[in-house]
């Protein structure tokens, strides 16, 4: 029973020695956010173009000049302005649940926002963010060149509620609880990682398809039986899932 991370994570350690992990965003979701932002820039430019048309009625020369400058300022400043004011997010990043953060977990500063956006010129080479995409794939922090120079990373921000652990308690008779020696052997034999896996399985069992659920608990029960000898009377008539549930309840809900 081994745990594995399917996504790239950035592990940071605070000055107090506490480690926390941030899920790093991959190139696909970042490309999607960039595409949304490009659409937003086009929409803003179109709206501003209408305003400039009014100015062109007064002077065509001045109107055209304003149009060109507004387009440039919007295309260049959109990401800088939003990332600075929205703590590392643009409209595209908000929709894709991404955020730019300092690579060391500190507060993002303006120079980081400016540098990472100015360096898009290098990341976009030769076309379609090819250099940035390759850099992102090669970097262990999924950084494009702009992120590398600004010391920033892009992470997923998933709004989570603090998890409910109602699945840990139920009113069924627990045939293992009454056997203190067996409980002690379980606590001794299971590593923290193994204990975490059986706990996760119990808490997420309602999310599993019926066949997968039966299969998973059969595997877990077999592993548990290999680790610890269960007296026959404690497992008599118990399904695999009930056995795992009883073990988890003894491990995590002991008072």
């Amino acid at each position: 029973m081994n745990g594995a991370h399917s996504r790239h994570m950035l592990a940071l350690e605070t000055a107090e020695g506490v480690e926390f992990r941030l899920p790093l965003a991959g190139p696909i979701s970042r490309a999607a956010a960039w595409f949304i932002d490009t659409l937003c820039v086009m929409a803003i430019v179109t709206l501003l173009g209408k305003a400039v048309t009014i100015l062109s009625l007064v002077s065509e020369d001045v109107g055209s000049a304003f149009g060109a400058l507004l387009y440039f300022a919007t295309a260049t400043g959109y990401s800088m302005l939003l990332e600075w004011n929205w703590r590392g997010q643009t409209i595209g990043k908000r929709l894709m649940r991404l955020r730019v953060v300092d690579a060391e977990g500190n507060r993002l500063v303006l120079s980081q926002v400016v540098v990472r956006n100015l360096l898009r010129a290098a990341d976009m080479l030769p076309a379609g963010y090819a250099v940035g995409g390759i850099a992102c794939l090669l970097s262990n922090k999924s950084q494009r060149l702009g992120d590398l120079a600004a010391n920033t990373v892009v992470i997923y921000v998933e709004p989570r509620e603090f998890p409910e652990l109602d699945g840990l308690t139920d009113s069924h008779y627990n045939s293992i609880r009454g056997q203190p020696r067996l409980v002690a052997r379980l606590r001794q034999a299971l590593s923290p990682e193994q204990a975490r896996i059986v706990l996760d399985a119990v808490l997420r069992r309602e999310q599993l398809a019926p066949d997968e659920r039966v299969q998973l608990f059969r595997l877990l029960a077999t592993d548990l039986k290999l680790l610890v000898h269960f007296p026959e009377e404690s497992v008599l008539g118990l399904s695999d899932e009930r056995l795992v549930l009883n073990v988890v309840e003894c491990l995590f809900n002991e008072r």
Partner: protein
Amino acid sequence: MIVHLKNFVDRERQALGELSALLKRMEEDPALVLTVAEVERLDFLYHRAASALAKLSSLPATEDVREHLSAVVARAHSELKDPRVARHRFHPVAWFLAGFPSALRRHLGALGLAIAVTFVGAAFGAYALSMNQPDVKEVLLPFSHLQGGPTERVRQEEQGASKDLATRHSQFAAHLMVNNIRVSATAMAFGVFFGLGTIVMLFYNGVILGAVVFDYVAAGQSVFLAGWLLPHGTIEIPAILVAGQAGCVLGGALLGWGESTPLSERLRRVGPDLMTLMGGVVVMLVWAGLVESFLSQYHEPVVPYAAKIALGLAELTGLVLLLSLGGRLRAASNQKPKSKTSQRRYMKRPRSRGHG
């Protein structure tokens, strides 16, 4: 040790909820200023959450609980660990007159390198054009208005070839500003290729400049050239050199020759200066664009060359004075011993590592 997880979660739920709500308020309102009591509470809640996370790290717990705690601790950490020394109201004039020149002087080596590469490029451009090889001019100066002979162009310009510009000065100025700012930003950005991209761009700019100067001087049109280039060139060319300087600074930070500090620390140190240098470049190029569009394109007899050359030299003198003296007075007055409260309030930096 195995924790009673449900009790643990129930105990932490309220404090984490309070911390999340406080963080949400801060994230939704960037201008929010917390009271001292709120900051103390934030600090307390952060430490409590961090402590809970540390406790769980050595215990078997669900990924959900760990990830939730991790996300909240990360958000609180970034709010509390602000690397800025102090927050000041931004004064654009003071920034341009003092901050920009000071940033430029902090990296004189990089500026020297940018100037040297441009000069080498200019010498190469002049030399290549002096060889009188067919098609060389077409390759070195791929701009239609520079393809013909300088004497013919001077004759046309003095007869009012640029008269049609009178109806589109603003458009032309905007075009120049956008184009030059884009080129400068690219020159700086290419510094990310360990400075080589910037050096190639500066060399190429130097080649064009050297070829143009040689072409006009060899044709005996030095006065026209000075009158045409100096009013805007004395600002525009230094602006591109400063952008090149920024690219060299970035490249130097990436290479880190002779430095023992980690890459992230080197980049963090130069970041504010890169931003300041590029901000100064933008201001300079806006001015250069206006001058080039509204003045440089007019020649004798409309505007005497002497006046244009005098203006160019005056601009150059002003720029040199600004860049060499700007910010020195303030720096001198700040050299008094600092009080404890004004000292940097850096906290120890966290360590980071990526995981595949």
